[in-house]
């Protein structure tokens, strides 16, 4: 196809991606270099049944005037990246100087908002993905051997958790797991502890979110593995049966190697999707103990008094950086393959 024809065919799609995916990255970068004008801060105490929190808020009127004239605020360079809510360079240096032991240093670093968010995001990503791959593979193997007439309905039932949006999926689970829901009540009876609630402890909440992540993502892995299983060549399996290989050996030595690229694909998609985890945190109302990078951006943009463009932009850029690090191995591999093809 000549260049000119290609250009006109691709132009609308390319333009849409350039304006709405390419440019926003630069817009975020630009915003992150600016900071909102000096704000008059006031301390507000918010109380809920679990205790009181003092929160620093912005005095609206005093800042409104300056904002109208200068909506993005003043140029701030990379200072937003270094402040307490992002990379927190000063705080880390301080913690390093005051450390009594190495674990003490690590725990004080992980108490800083950005590192807390990063820790949760990575924990979520790297605990959900392997479980999803293993479970999806097992489900695919067992659905593959059932009677043909049953396959359609069973596949439909299995993929339901995947087609609902994460917010609805997590709400549906949350309503059951909540201390007043059916599963929550069952757990209380089971452990004979009327005050036990999955929401009350940090580690239980994390486990709940990870279980949700597995529930939501496994259908995807299942469907892809299932399709992969249909392409497994039958001849080597026949030969293996003749040679006396057991079922487990056949799966281990023939099916698994064949599905290796499929597993890589699933891992890549799962990592990309789970890195942006946001809705489950809202659905489970777990903001208190589990913050992800996406949630931090959401919070900045949802700030009632003033949208913190600078802060959101800086977190966005750091998130994109981590996505880049995650994707590098894949991109390098593709690049090598491309080189050898030529």
């Amino acid at each position: 196809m000549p260049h000119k024809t290609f250009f006109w065919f691709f132009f609308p799609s390319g333009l849409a991606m350039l304006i709405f995916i390419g440019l926003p990255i630069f817009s975020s970068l630009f915003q992150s270099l600016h900071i909102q004008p000096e704000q008059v801060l006031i301390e507000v105490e918010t109380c809920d049944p679990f205790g009181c929190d003092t929160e620093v808020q912005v005095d609206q009127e005093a800042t409104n005037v300056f904002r109208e004239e200068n909506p993005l605020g003043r140029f701030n360079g990379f200072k937003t990246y270094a402040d307490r809510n992002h990379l927190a360079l000063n705080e880390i240096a301080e913690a390093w100087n005051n450390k009594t032991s190495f674990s003490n240093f690590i725990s004080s670093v992980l108490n800083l908002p950005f590192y807390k968010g990063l820790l949760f995001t990575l924990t979520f990503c790297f605990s959900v993905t392997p479980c999803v791959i293993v479970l999806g593979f097992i489900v695919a193997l067992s659905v593959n051997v059932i009677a043909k007439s049953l396959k359609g309905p069973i596949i439909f039932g299995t993929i339901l958790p995947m087609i609902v949006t994460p917010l609805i999926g997590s709400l549906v689970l949350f309503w059951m797991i909540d201390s007043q829901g059916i599963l929550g009540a069952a757990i209380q009876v089971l452990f004979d502890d009327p005050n036990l609630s999955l929401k009350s402890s940090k580690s239980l909440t994390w486990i709940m979110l990870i279980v949700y992540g597995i529930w939501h993502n496994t259908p995807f892995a299942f469907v892809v593995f299932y399709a992969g299983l249909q392409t497994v060549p039958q001849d080597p399996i026949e030969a293996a049966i003749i040679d006396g290989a057991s079922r487990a050996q056949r799966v281990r030595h023939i099916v698994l190697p064949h599905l290796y690229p499929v597993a890589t694909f699933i891992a890549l998609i799962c990592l990309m999707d789970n890195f942006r985890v946001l809705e489950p945190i809202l659905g489970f109302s777990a903001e208190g103990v589990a913050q992800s990078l996406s949630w931090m951006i959401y919070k900045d943009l949802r700030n009632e008094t003033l949208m913190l463009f600078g802060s959101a932009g800086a977190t966005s850029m750091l998130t994109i950086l981590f996505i880049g690090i995650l994707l590098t191995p894949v991109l390098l591999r593709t690049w090598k393959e491309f080189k050898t093809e030529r």
Partner: protein
Amino acid sequence: MESKVNKYSSQLIIINSVFIILWLTISIFPFLWTLWGSFKVKADFFSRSDWWYAISGFNTMIETGGSFTFNGYIESWTEGAFWKAARNTVIVTFFVVTVSLFLGTLGAYALSRSTYKYTFWILIAALIFRAMPHITLVSGYLFPFFELQIWGILPTTIIVLVAINQPFTLWLLYSFFKTVPKELDESALIDGCSYFQAFRHVIMPIMWPGVVTAGLFSLMLAYNDFTVTSLLLNQQNYTMVPKINAYLGTVEHGGNYMWAVASVVSATAPLFMIVMFFQRNLISGLTAGAIKG
């Protein structure tokens, strides 16, 4: 030949069936439970004292005089203005699907038929774009959209969703177009068709399965989106998913919890029906990427 490979011991069949039934329960039961609970009052759905109330509808009986109530649905659709959110979702979904498919088929056709190196780089760029968390993009939109005064309205959201959806649509349709033999459009070109005519009259008619799959995925993206719609639309223009989230925000003040439960069911049911209808396409789409490895 088939029978030899697929011979199983009865023990294995039993373990397998138990596992599948267990797995189906895990994936379906939460939805059935929510459906059942949406016809109850809050005191039953979240019955601290006795979970059997949720099934028998003890408090529902006291409050409404029957063991089933449609109050959650009626109130959320009228008082809670869920009808408006549903209408907005229909508008957004319809336009996102149409525009995405239009742009996507053109772009993917070009990518699959060009032999130059830059197609590789475009596809890699699309993969990187696919990996961007939507919220990082939204944080880039908000300020310019405020300045241009196009924030909060449906058309902006539609265009943004179309663009966010493009990378995946391109990859999906690209792998479908690759399966259509090149000779087909080449012969049309020799007969004097332009590229566009060959695309329009020769390729598109046999591409319907692929287009339906891509359309289904665009539909799911537009229908299910929360990040973009909740931050780029103003409250009056909310689609269903951010609307449900908004009901939750008011839980402490009003008794809107059952609104959320009823609207979760209202939002999920049509999607399930659509997917049930197009299940085959959905699965072929999911696997299109994997087979290539």
